[in-house]
């Protein structure tokens, strides 16, 4: 049996989920990314001192968290985990069904928050919660049969457990606006702020990094014992933070939880540094500049979190913490990874029925990514400056620059789709004839 590169790639794709599954998640994330920056515009001037409450700032925040971070994490994990765990997705139609429930749900949540329509918010939150529970069940089913990769599996289990805490607290907070909270608002908020970014998204990001970073750097897998140790410290940090939020332990425990999280992050970053230093591929480009920046801002988020826990007398410190953890760490990291993973998966899927397969680099348009990189960095810096100086105009400028960057990222994504569909360039066509 002889297969040319393209045809063989086509054979390889037979066990993958259809391209429409991951790409619909990534496409929705790209669209919500742009909408998030646009949603920030109406109240951007008041953003530097934002600490919560209904309005377009809360909508913008959740367009990022639910619309971009969770959306792209779902798309990536549904595609990559089955390959890593060597277990296929059991229910083939579930990923698409989840997307159809989740995506409008996020829109309803954002619209409900922005316009103050509590019923719309609760309806959207319910749809999002049901979709995420279905996603959790799908991933849990996959993890149950995982062979090897204990560090990745452990992180994913912690992420799923944290997702449950996140959902309960999110629904409680949404119901607050109907006058019927499930938990006391302060408790629910404290749990939500710890478990949504660090517990659910954070552990998913740290766990999947043990596959993705060595895969992109072409290095050996990280030391499993240290990865599990990092996971254990993170679990201890989350449990202590939960105990502090519930009032079971004194408030000082929050600082200890942050210190434990710091140890977990330090161990993780040491493993990532080793992977990058020992990898065969050194030139990882602009995408990994975003990833490295994200790691630095993860550390910064913990330092600022300590300031919040200790009651540092600094205006806007809680907002700065939110910016660092959501935009600085998670959004930067995911956008960095997305710009590598989208062309990579695109190359795998585009080969179906096409000879030769396009390479990931042939699917990547560099210019929109360059525009996005600088806009993302500038928007982040402007927002940080706006918070530090309570500068309304800086926040408006940040929203405009961020929206420009998000639009550029959209151009990159659309370019990948377009290039996946068009005939190969002459140089590749020649390779096809040879093959």
């Amino acid at each position, binding site marked *: 049996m002889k297969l040319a*590169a393209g045809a063989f790639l086509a054979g390889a794709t037979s066990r993958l989920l259809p391209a429409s599954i991951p790409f619909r998640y990534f496409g929705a994330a790209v669209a919500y990314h742009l909408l998030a920056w646009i949603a920030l515009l109406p109240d951007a001037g008041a953003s530097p001192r934002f600490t919560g409450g209904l309005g377009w700032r809360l909508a913008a925040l959740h367009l990022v968290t639910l619309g971009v971070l969770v959306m792209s994490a779902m798309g990536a994990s549904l595609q990559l985990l089955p*390959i890593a765990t060597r277990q296929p997705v059991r229910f083939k139609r579930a990923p698409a069904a989840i997307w159809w429930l989740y995506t409008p749900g996020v829109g309803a949540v954002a619209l409900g928050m922005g316009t103050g329509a509590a019923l719309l918010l609760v309806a959207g939150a319910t749809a999002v919660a049901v979709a995420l529970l279905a996603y959790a069940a799908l991933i849990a089913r996959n993890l149950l049969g995982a062979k090897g990769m204990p560090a990745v599996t452990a992180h994913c289990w912690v992420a799923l457990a944290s997702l449950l805490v996140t959902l309960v607290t999110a629904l409680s907070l949404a119901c607050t606006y109907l006058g019927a909270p499930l938990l006391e608002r302060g408790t629910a908020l404290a749990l939500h702020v710890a478990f949504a970014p660090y517990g659910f998204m954070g552990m998913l990001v740290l766990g999947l990094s043990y596959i993705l970073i060595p895969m992109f750097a072409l290095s050996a897998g990280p030391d499993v014992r240290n990865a599990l140790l990092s996971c254990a410290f993170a679990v201890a940090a989350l449990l202590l933070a939960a105990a502090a939020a519930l009032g079971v332990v004194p408030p000082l425990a929050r600082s200890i939880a942050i210190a434990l999280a710091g140890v977990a992050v330090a161990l993780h970053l040491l493993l990532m540094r080793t992977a990058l230093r020992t990898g065969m591929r050194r030139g990882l480009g602009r995408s990994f500049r975003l990833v490295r920046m994200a790691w630095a801002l993860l550390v910064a988020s913990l330092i600022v979190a300590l300031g919040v826990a200790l009651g540092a007398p600094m205006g806007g410190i809680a907002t700065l913490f939110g910016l660092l953890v959501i935009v600085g760490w998670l959004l930067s990291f995911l956008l960095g990874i997305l710009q590598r993973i989208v062309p990579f998966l695109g190359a795998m899927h585009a080969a179906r029925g096409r000879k030769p397969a396009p390479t990931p680099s042939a699917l990547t348009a560099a210019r929109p990514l360059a525009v996005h990189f600088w806009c993302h960095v500038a928007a982040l810096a402007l927002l940080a400056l706006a918070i530090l100086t309570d500068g309304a105009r800086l926040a408006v400028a940040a929203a405009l620059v961020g929206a420009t960057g998000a639009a550029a990222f959209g151009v990159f994504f659309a370019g990948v789709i377009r290039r996946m569909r068009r005939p190969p360039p002459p140089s590749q066509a020649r390779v096809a004839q040879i093959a």
Partner: protein
Amino acid sequence: MSGPAKADPGPADGSRGAQAARWVDADGVHIDVRGLAAPAPLVAILALVATIRDATAVIVHHERDPKMLYPELAEIGWKAERIDAPPGEVRLKLTAVAAES
């Protein structure tokens, strides 16, 4: 030069470590990545491919279809060809496209 006819695939739970068995046979350089946890097979195969400077083929002994390998191969101008293998094994012949032109 010939090496062992068949390398020890190790346990199926990915606990064999990061070492891939290599040997040279008449049809090319062989690499057995069975039992290695991801992404070790990908890295080991690409590391071997990077050392090939002539038309020598690389024969990969794998336990599954290495989906992540193909875009990487295409990127460096190599192609894969599936060849006969015993049940439970995926065997690939990798060759540089330029070497055939």
